[in-house]
């Protein structure tokens, strides 16, 4: 899970793994790994979800953390356009290191203060990702689907 701080990386994992959500923000330091089993079309997957400290001026992007990754989930917050700008940046850095599939997540869709991404900008980047998914860790919208879609990608491509 990559992205700026407070976009909801930890919340997405918590919702997916434990089915819980908390309004209270507790910033992540370093890494926490969660496990989750998933079955797609009779295929068993064991997901190891690396929830990583958000990158910002207090914490730099750590290439080491994505070394062994099979897929990357790049999370943005739909109320803060800056998180999308950061994501494009993180994307560029990650792509230098790996060609694993990347999913772009636009989180917090339950809040209605959306940034106005010009259609074209998103389209320009669309092909960079195997999927662009709008989620809410609060209501759970599309959280399951997010991880499911990664499983489906592997079923199709491996």
């Amino acid at each position, binding site marked *: 899970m990559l992205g700026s701080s407070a976009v909801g990386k930890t919340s997405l994992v918590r919702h997916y793994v434990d089915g819980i959500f908390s309004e209270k923000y507790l*910033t992540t*330091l*370093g890494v926490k*790994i969660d496990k989750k089993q998933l079955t797609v079309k009779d295929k068993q997957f064991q997901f190891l979800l690396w929830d990583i400290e958000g990158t910002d001026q207090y914490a730099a992007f*750590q290439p080491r953390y994505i070394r*062994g990754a099979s897929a990357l989930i790049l999370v943005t917050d739909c109320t803060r356009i800056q998180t999308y*700008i950061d994501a494009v940046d993180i994307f*560029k850095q990650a792509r230098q290191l790996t060609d694993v599939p990347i999913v772009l997540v636009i989180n917090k869709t339950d809040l209605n203060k959306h940034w106005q991404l010009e259609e074209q900008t998103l389209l320009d980047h669309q092909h960079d990702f195997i999927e662009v998914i709008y989620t809410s860790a609060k209501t759970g919208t599309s959280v399951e689907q997010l991880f499911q879609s990664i499983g489906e990608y592997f079923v199709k491509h491996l």
Partner: protein
Amino acid sequence: MSNIYNESSNNSLEKMALNALDCTVLLRRQSEKFEIIHQIETWSNIVISKISAHKAVINDGCIFLNDFLIDAEMFWAKNQQGVLSSGFWTEQLANGKLMHFEALACVTEQQSLLIINNVQSVFAQQQKTLQIAREALISNEQLAQQVDNTHQYLNEIATNTDDMKKMLATIASTIEHATFGIMLLDKNLKPILQNPINYQLFQVNTKDQGQTETPLDVIFKLMKKQYPEHERIFEAASAWHGELYWLAAPYYVKWLKVSIYPIKGALGDVNHWVFYISDITRIKHLLEHNEQLAHYDSLTKLPNRQLFWNLLEQNCSQQPAFYLLYLDIDNFKFINESYGHAEGDELLITIAQRLQKMLKKEDIICRVGGDEFVILLRNIKEEDAKKHCLAIAQRILRKINEPYEVRHKDRIITTASIGIVHFPTDATDPDLLMKYSDLAAYNAKLTGKSNIKFYSQKLQQKTAQRIALENALREAIVNHEFSIVLQPMMDINTGKIIKAEALVRWLPPNAENNIMPNDFIPLAEDTGLIIPLGKLIFKQVCQCIQQLNQQGHPLTVSVNLSPKQIYDNSLSHFVYQMLNEYNIPPQQIEFEITESSLANDFDLVLATLLQLKKGGVNIAVDDFGTGYSSLAYLKRLPVDSLKIDRSFIKDIENDENDKAIVSAVIVMAHSLKLSVIAEGVENIAQLDFLSKMNCDIIQGYFFSKPLYLNNFISFIKKHNENLT
């Protein structure tokens, strides 16, 4: 020391120390197999599995640590003294409890160790600090975004609504419910509109009923005190952002974040100002919990503006003289936009490091703005102090000019401008020192990138003059105070006048003499006024051509294009619209672009030229020989002719070098099928030589100076009569 980790070591002091540190220590025996030197029974089973009394492997379930082993193995293999950290990670226990660890791979005395620390308390402490910092960061960001959105919206309304009443009504209803203060001012800084929250922000409940200070008074007072160097924003019509500390006696302490933007008309003239004011006291308060965060810039770790201000005041109250250097990165905005913010940040960090390395420890360096640094040079030897200071400033600029490697291994080049003031000679008070140093830096920037300027009173006068000239120029554009003169160009072989260069003259209403282009075009270029001015000139040129055509002289007229005009993407559209309006065939226009404008961004220039060229106009390269455009460049550009710079023609009868260059350029141009124009031809000897070298066209005083249209037409008539 050598065997403290040995199995045999039973030193109880060491054991106690290790226990106190709450760490498990493993000695690597072979790949991924360890000997237990020390362990903390309560938690070591979370990270390691024992395979015998003293042997262990890393616990399978501890995924992070297993991953770190890959790096650790590589590190141990190098067998060089040192430590590699894994960074923090978190394990969740079966009971839901969280534990935080950090692993260190070490090599000491030829031994490979893996130390696993339980970092519970450090983690909690850092998390608290970072939590505050991040919350503040996000609040700040959200605030900036809201202000930004609102400003975009207001700017659109203000520039696109012609009806003033309607505009004010729309703006008033828009800002009514904003969550921060907004003020709309006229161009003389008189408030027109303010929203309710703006009054609340500045409401002070003191017993002193005679409170007469308006919000605007307060802001100006604080700005003057806290950002004296930025007073010129209103003259220079630039945007400004800053944080003001407001001590409203006796109970109120507020931090205000203020953004000021001019709203400009089509000519870049200011019609309105908008102020956005937010109360960031809470954010500031959060940050102040942490001394380090409050006084040091989190990015570069240099003292921030607040601490700098304290330091400057301290230094001003003591006697020793010092120089204050105000350093401003020249193209930081461009770098941020074209390479990305992360790269911009990285650049700032590197710049800060380079600066720090060059200074002595008694010097002070701070980051006082986005891309602005201030340096106090103290303890400079009194003798030749200014010379020493200049030498240091030059060294700083050289260091900054060195290429930067940012993360994608791109090499970025940047430059900076430095303004310098001296305490106590130039000023003794912190406000003035800052104001003057900014003025000097501003002037350094105007003289071109990578410059140094010392403050002087003359400099201040010059700045005032420049601003006056800029205002006059803006009015001149509105009032159409320009006229066109034409300088004929003659075909050497036939003697016919086949072209003319259009040049501009500015005649202010009460002035006796024309102002020559050299005295205002560079200013127009710097301020962006060249765009409306260029359009006005082009329109007047079209009118001239129309008259020439009507009188039976369908000549080609060449018009100069400055770099900013080339980058203006409405250029081509405007040109063809004018040609259409005045019914002029595109072949009758030739654009002259200077060689130096090619150097900036070749691909962009190429795209613009191709677009222009598609419609049928001609293109010439002006001042050829003075820049560094290579043949390779020329081949790729859609160019029709070359103008050899006058500096090569001046001594051409005598100077062997010039002769050689000019004849080589002519041969080369002809091989590329370009026609060659020599400008600045003043005598027959020059003409003879150029004619011998097969130059195609000449232009210069020998033949005719630039003429107003009527004189120009008479000149052609006479010239043609003489020819036949």
